[in-house]
């Protein structure tokens, strides 16, 4: 076993010994998901039987110490194949249920899954969240087939989402990841992925399992590691993603800190890669892409603008230490505007994000302070975006995001030039 391999429990080792090898592995990380995991396990099992009946498959539930009986529920879940007009898996199917070791978090759960995939020498893997309500057997097909049949190494999910869903992804993570690494992966922090056994083994060689990657940053880490190390990537359209709502009490600034720090941490490691990339290219998309009408949603625009104004005024002296004067002047002007003429243009937003990235890289102050101070500016950008696209269709909004991404790509030299100064 490699030096950094995780310690698997005796029980799971014995089961692996029995199985010896497998073609496909689907991992389901969990923590107190007894209520929702049954549906996920059923969808996975049905998907494997329906689309890969001749392959030897394994389902791994990597649990973080649930106290609601999640592991027991997974063990006992069975699928009524007859009602689904699906025949039993001929290649063989096994279910492994094991607690993971290491720091608590999705990353540690994934590490156990990668390790089992490595030991079983699987060809293709997928991981899906355990709180999914909308997963269907087709998700397994879409996440696994590009690996097995098309020789891809990494399949990123592409969900059908409302135009105002995933605003951190839309305004920060997608544009900056695309500009830096040159691949148009629309939802790089989606949460459900497909990957080859080769890539799983590669992930295990990385020494990140005691860092924030193990706690909360695994999604963007997997995507970026695959892209930056020249693995063959694609995306699969999975339809809508409906899952348990995140903790409603979760603090936006903490969320922003977690997500953006995960992106920025990776820029340190991969500077030699991304500094050489210019422009971007689309990646293959599998699945039947469709869109549905937009349901009206409630947006508290006044609240967002108020928070932006408060931040621009109260944090101005704090921002002075790393944001250019011209930019600060514009933010100050915006703080005096009403909703009708409130706007944060794309080039200004790009300048803000790149300067935050530079300040994070140069460690001009506590990184947590820095990223939490981004919250009011982010809310300002979201408010500006909502005002601008309120009447737009989903396709028009997508085009608008394309413009934002191009702005990120055009200004990338600014980041590269200042990075090593």
């Amino acid at each position, binding site marked *: 076993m490699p030096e950094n391999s995780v310690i698997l429990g005796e029980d799971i080792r014995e089961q692996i010994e029995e199985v010896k090898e497998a073609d496909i592995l689907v991992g389901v990380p969990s923590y107190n998901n007894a209520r929702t995991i049954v549906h996920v396990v059923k969808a996975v099992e049905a998907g494997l039987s329906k689309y890969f009946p001749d392959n030897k498959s394994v389902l791994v539930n990597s649990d973080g110490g649930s106290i609601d009986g999640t592991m027991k529920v997974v063990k006992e879940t069975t699928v009524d194949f007859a009602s689904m007009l699906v025949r039993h898996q001929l290649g063989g199917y096994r279910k492994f249920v094991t607690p993971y070791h290491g720091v608590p978090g999705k990353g540690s759960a994934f590490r156990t899954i990668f390790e089992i995939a490595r030991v079983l020498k699987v060809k293709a893997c997928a991981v899906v969240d355990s709180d999914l309500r909308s997963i269907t057997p087709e998700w397994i097909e879409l996440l696994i087939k590009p690996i097995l049949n098309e020789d891809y190494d990494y399949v990123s999910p592409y969900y059908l989402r409302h135009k105002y869903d*995933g*605003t*951190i*992804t839309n305004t920060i993570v997608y544009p900056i990841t695309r500009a830096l690494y040159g691949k148009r992966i629309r939802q790089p922090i989606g949460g459900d992925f497909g990957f080859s056994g080769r890539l799983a083994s590669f992930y295990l060689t990385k020494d990140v399992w005691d860092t924030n990657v193990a706690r909360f940053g695994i999604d963007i880490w997997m995507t970026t590691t695959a892209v930056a190390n020249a693995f063959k990537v694609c995306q699969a359209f999975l339809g809508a993603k409906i899952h348990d709502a995140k903790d409603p009490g979760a603090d936006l600034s903490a969320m922003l800190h977690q997500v953006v720090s995960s992106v920025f941490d990776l820029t340190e490691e991969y500077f030699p890669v991304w500094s050489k990339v210019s422009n971007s290219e689309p990646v293959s998309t599998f699945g039947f892409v469709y869109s549905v009408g937009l349901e009206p949603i409630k947006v508290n625009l006044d609240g967002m603008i108020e928070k932006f104004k408060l931040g621009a005024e109260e944090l101005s002296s704090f921002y002075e230490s790393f944001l250019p004067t011209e930019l600060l002047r514009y933010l100050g002007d915006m703080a005096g505007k009403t909703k009708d003429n409130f706007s944060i243009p794309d080039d200004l937003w790009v300048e803000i994000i790149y300067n935050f990235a530079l300040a994070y890289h140069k460690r001009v102050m506590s990184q947590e302070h820095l990223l939490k101070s981004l919250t009011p500016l982010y809310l300002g950008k979201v408010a500006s975006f909502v005002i601008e696209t309120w009447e737009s269709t989903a396709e028009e909004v997508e085009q608008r995001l394309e413009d934002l991404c191009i702005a990120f790509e055009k200004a990338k030299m600014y980041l590269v030039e200042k990075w090593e100064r």
Partner: protein
Amino acid sequence: MKNISEHILTEPLKDFIQRLLAFMPNLLTCLIIFVFGFIAAWIVKYVVSKIANLLRVDRFCAKVGITETFGKVGIKGPPARLLSRIFYWLVLIIFVIIALYTLRVPAIEKLLEKFFLYLPDLFVAALLIIIGYILGNFLGRTALIASVNAGVKFSRLLGKGVKAIVVLLAFVMALEQLGIGRGTVIVAFTILFGGFVFALSLSFGLGGKDIARQYLEGKVKGESEEKDDLTHI
């Protein structure tokens, strides 16, 4: 007459010259140590400057807000340079003290003894103030950003208040360490701090009664700030 002049002038003069001659080696040693001190201080300054640059002290100081704080009180220039200068003077002072000891003048010896006994207290007090400043800056900034993100209107004041309290606390502890007005300082601080908290509670209570009412109503009746359906991730 001759005896008198010998008694009054010649003998004391001889005595003085003898003492001066006896003192000369000490003075010479003192001067040599002093010169060595200069050289040693210069070397230490150079070494500390190199180590500080290697350990990226300037970057760390900027990160925790020390550079900013120094700038505000008029201390310009990179902290690494300041640190090397502090070491320069520290080494020089140590050599000056050693040099003065070699003179073997009882008055100077007594003075130096007192100074040496006081030195650990002085060092601890300086350390307390420095730590207080760094901690005050950090906590002040934490309070500022957290309150801005929570939508609190007077965030900057809150941040400054937190910083002031921490720095004040460190200052009082430093004075306590130095033994300056021990009882008086603690009583003054207690009165000041108690008064500050009381004033703060009063102003909060009076100024924020409507907000508090709205908040409690929201909690009790289930009404709260208008939420939106946006999902950020």
